């Protein structure tokens, strides 16, 4: 579904990514974890066509990201909810689809808001919603767009830990229903392990010597469906410890 071959991205003298290759299957949930400034966001943005590869190649379903953008195949969810403050929750959900040149589907958008627990908040504006609710609207917007691929850049980064855990469970059930391909960037190791089929560890410090590379890759060995009970399980703790040690051994 997504293929990244020998990707390097540099900004002037700054080398953000160095020779990264990866393949993601359709319907797979891949998490990318790493410290701030390691290049994980750059990787996600390059897959989504918001940054240009300096060398190497990215393709989405065989096409370059630009083509995937034009067909509304890529649904971004950013750390900042990026809702338009003057539009209601419902309008925000349909807005991106209209911008992509597709017919809006109000009923579908309402259903999506209901599925994400926002029944009754259709006419609320972002200022009236909590941080978690705003991110739910942003996720509904990406799904309503009809994208096959969800590119999520620390979407829960600004939420409190309790809301984060709730949202993690919710995103998994949404993913189970919609079977989207998800690339999920985070700096939280437990989040990366809990969500992912596969967890990629990116390391780097944005200096010439320490450009972002994938330093480890884990197949997460936790049965699905996963819910809150996973957080307390021994297997989960073990996997988290493994990923942590991969992060720290490289740093």
């Amino acid at each position: 579904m997504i293929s990244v071959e020998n990707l390097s991205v540099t900004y002037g003298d700054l080398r953000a990514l160095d020779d990264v290759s990866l393949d993601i299957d359709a319907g797979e949930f891949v998490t990318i974890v790493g410290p701030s400034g390691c290049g994980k966001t750059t990787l996600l943005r390059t897959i989504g066509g918001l940054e240009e590869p300096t060398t190497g190649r990215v393709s989405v379903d065989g096409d370059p990201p630009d083509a995937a953008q034009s067909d509304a195949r890529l649904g971004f969810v950013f750390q900042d909810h990026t809702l338009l403050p003057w539009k209601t929750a419902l309008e925000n959900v349909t807005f991106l689809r209209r911008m992509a040149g597709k017919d809006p589907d109000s009923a579908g958008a309402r259903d999506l808001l209901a599925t994400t627990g926002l029944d009754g908040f259709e006419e609320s504006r972002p200022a009236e919603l909590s941080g978690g609710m705003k991110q739910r609207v942003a996720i509904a917007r990406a799904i309503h767009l009809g994208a096959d691929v969800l590119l999520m850049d620390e979407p829960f980064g600004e939420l409190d830990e309790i809301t984060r855990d709730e949202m993690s469970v919710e995103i998994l059930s949404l993913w189970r229903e919609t079977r989207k391909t998800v690339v999920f960037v985070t700096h939280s190791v437990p989040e990366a392990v809990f969500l992912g089929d596969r967890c990629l560890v990116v390391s780097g410090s944005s200096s010439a010597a320490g450009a972002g590379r994938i330093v480890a890759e884990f197949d997460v060995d936790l049965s699905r469906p996963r819910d809150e009970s996973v957080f307390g399980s021994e297997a989960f703790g073990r996997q988290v410890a493994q990923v942590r040690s991969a992060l720290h051994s490289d740093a």
Partner: protein
Amino acid sequence: MSVVQRVPAPGVVLPLTGLAVAIGVWWMFTVVFAVPPFLLPSPAAVAARLAGNPDLYLTNALDTLWKIAVGGSVGVVAGFALALAVWAIPVLDRAVYPYLVAARVLPKIAVAPIFLIYFGVGFDTAILFVAVIVFFPVVVGTAAGLDRTPDAHLDLLRSVDADPVRTFLAVRLPHALPDVFAGVKQSVTLAVVGAVVAEWILSNDGLGSLILVASENVQVDVMLAALAVLIAMGLLLYGGVTLCYRAVVWQ
């Protein structure tokens, strides 16, 4: 049966009390010190002037209002258009914008006598002068507003390859409107000043002209009556713009 007592909002009561006290002090001053009416007429005398010949003030007020409306509209449209051009064309931005900002220090009123030489006395010259005065705050406000769109919102639209016109209308313009209106609000007060100055120098009608002629005849009561009408007009215009702002711009 219950008696409902309607208490006016304190936001209105205090300013009105202040006004009443000021007029009362003015009145007492004229009575206690027996000021000759030709030097400082009492508020009652000014009100009598207004009531005695309402047509004179109304006709002149409409003349002035018309200059503000036409000149103001021309100035707002031209200012918005230039800001748009400056924003869209980087070369223009660097070559022209610094001078638009610097033009704040230019006392526009000093330009009126030059206009007199080039364009002569008349309605058109007055319009042009009001337009020039209104123009600058609108350009600067709009140009600032057009840069106000958060990058993340632009990324979002880029991720679905939204066309530039749609992006502009749906996201950039609404983000700019508060600044555009800030410029227009500033312009309204300036436009009243501009119209009065224009009527002193560039045309022979309207409240400005009435004040000037009354000054030559030492009719302080007429001058104060015209001034009162000007203040009322300025407040109405400012209120009108504020209402437009509330109707158009998200809060």
